[in-house]
């Protein structure tokens, strides 16, 4: 027993500061947030318990549903876009190109730029002015003779959020590419050779050998991209600011907070947390199971 303490005591002591800090600043604060979400904390006044009223109000409010719809459109385009481009680039690099290092850096580089910094540039690129006043992408389309493709970008009702996903895809497709590339590289050459020896066509090689090996990578990439997408805030604030047409729950939360509607803001924060949990929790369960299987 004494020996036991000697073994696990010091490591526990060493990590206990982080346990305490994470406990307080993550989990206790999540609790405080949820309890604020249950109050009618409208301003600086003392709070009054209202139960789940903030949540029911929000879920019947057209404005909040609009922000959820925006988030849904954004997430779908963002996920499909990053996965598609990330995969294609990784596949092409895997096929073997000259100067692979240069391409890898070029595609990965956008990730080094923050959303806020690139958002300022994308605000200009996505300007919806057309004709004489066109700038950014619209001007580019005009000058290469594709003037008819000019459009309103994020100013378009309903599908505008698909345009808003463009900067996000530009930023993160390279990261997904890096994940896939490491997946491709993790597949031993012998496996491919064995398949080719067995007479598998190139398509069959991918279908039965490579894709199954890539699926854990794809899942991780999907989860990472999805939870980033659900929390999107800085990109939208940088490109448009908090305006109705591009409103997502995170920017709506910020608006409620500045309007001193703390109860409402906390309720939105709680809903966002739950949304992220929907993606993260199954993934955590999956990886935990996979690890247990691997240990056996």
């Amino acid at each position, binding site marked *: 027993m004494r020996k036991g303490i*000697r073994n696990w*005591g*010091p490591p526990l*002591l*060493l990590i*206990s*500061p982080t346990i*305490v*800090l994470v406990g*307080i600043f993550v989990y206790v604060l999540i609790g405080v947030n949820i309890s604020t979400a249950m109050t009618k904390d*409208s*301003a*600086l*006044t003392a709070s009054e318990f209202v139960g789940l009223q903030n949540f029911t109000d929000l879920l019947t409010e057209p*404005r909040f549903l*609009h922000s959820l719809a925006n988030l849904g459109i954004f997430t779908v385009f963002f996920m499909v876009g990053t996965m598609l481009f990330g995969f294609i680039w990784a596949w092409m690099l895997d096929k073997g190109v000259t100067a692979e290092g240069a391409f890898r850096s070029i595609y990965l580089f956008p990730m080094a730029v923050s959303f806020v910094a690139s958002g300022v540039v994308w*605000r200009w690129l996505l*300007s*919806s*002015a*057309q*004709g*004489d*006043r066109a700038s950014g992408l619209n001007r580019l389309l005009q000058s290469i003779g594709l003037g008819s493709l000019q459009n*309103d970008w*994020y*100013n378009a*009702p309903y599908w505008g959020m698909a345009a808003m996903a463009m900067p996000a895809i530009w930023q993160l497709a390279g990261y997904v590419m890096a994940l896939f590339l490491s997946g491709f590289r993790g597949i031993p050459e012998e496996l491919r050779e064995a398949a080719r020896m067995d007479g598998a066509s190139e398509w069959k090689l991918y279908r039965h050998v490579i894709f199954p090996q890539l699926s854990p990578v794809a899942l991780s990439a999907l989860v990472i991209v999805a939870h980033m997408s659900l929390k999107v805030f800085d990109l939208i604030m940088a*490109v*448009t*600011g908090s*305006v*109705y*047409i*591009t*409103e997502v729950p995170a920017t709506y939360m910020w*608006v*409620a*907070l*500045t*309007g*001193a*509607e703390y109860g409402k803001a906390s309720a939105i924060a709680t809903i966002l947390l739950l949304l992220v949990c929907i993606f993260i929790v199954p993934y955590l369960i999956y990886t935990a199971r996979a690890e247990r299987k691997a240990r056996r």
Partner: protein
Amino acid sequence: MRKALAAVAGLAVAGLALAGCAGSNDNGDKGDANDASQVEVFTWWASGSEKAGLDALVKVFDQQFPDTKFVNAAVAGGAGSNAKNALASRLKANNPPDSFQAHAGAELTDYIEAEKIEDLSDFYKENGLTDVFPSTLLDRLTVDGKIYSVPSNIHRANVTWVNTDLLTKAGIDPKVAPADLDAWLADMQKLKDNGVETPLSVATDWTQVQLFENVLLSVLGADGYQGLWDGTTKFDSTEVTTAIDYYSQLLSFANTDGTGQDWPVATDMVIDGTAAYNVMGDWALAEFDAKNMTYGKEFTTWPTPGTDGTFDFLADSFTLPVGAPHAAGAKNWLKTISSADGQKAFNLAKGSIPARTDADPADYPEYQQGAMASFAKDTVVSSLAHGAAVKVSWLNDITSAIGQFVSTKDAGTFQSALVDAQTKGLGQ
């Protein structure tokens, strides 16, 4: 070795625990009403003409009260929204600054209801401010018979900025304002026929709120407009329907790419001649000055058609929080702000006009002279877009309703959203 490691780890834990306790409890010295040794002033004036104005004001303050030390607690960014969040958390923790900036009027409602700021009615009487501030302004500042803030400057929100060149080319006299919205719309049609693609320029959501507020004021008149904010005018009235109709006609002459662009983008369109009109507060003057435009020659201004005779005001003002650590210092600060010298120094630097009616117009440039003359004689009403008319959450609701209207053009939904916002805002 092990023991040493354990000891170090133990110390680290203890140290962190102590660090966690400290810091939260340093506001033990509660407000002393007679402490004038310093004054901590909280603003969002951290750059540009606003910073210049604050510096000029501090200079006057140092002359008038050399014994009170000025402590600048400015929080930069986001048109004050960062500062407002920082301030709210300080007030909630009962650690107020000695004085903080807020837009005068209804934006203070939350602070008043929470009893976070002091009634300054006696301060007004002691310093004779009730005589030098116009009574229409005092009416706008008074809540249940009490005044809670001291304005440092006045801005006007119902100003239309006009590119004279474009109007002259289209055969319209730029010096004469259209009599009403119908005449204005007719002029816009004329401009469009003469090849001006965007007669009116707009920018992001709040500038569209300001345009809508101008239309409401034009259609409802001063009393009807003012009634919207205390509930005597209902948002489901036919006048509001008419206003929404005018608003959507105006938008049909405006650029559609405004969302997400800040106000200078729209103002620049008037400056470089792509748009003929822009409705913006009088801080736009600095933008015209910066581009070397001459007032009365290359550009001119008039009150938005139909709002002549009313002055749609917003003002920055300062307060005395409950439990301010240096209340006497704060009162010295408020005295400087309200003094003739303080107002002159500040407003000359910031480009706004003084709230006092006894200021000498000769000290100010041409545009400000005109604004001062109107402020002295016009009916003063509160600006919606800038926190004077309603509290912040109500304004947020209206802003979002307008954002929705601009993208969907659904007048019915817009009006019912406005009705809901009024019901919620009045707490009914």
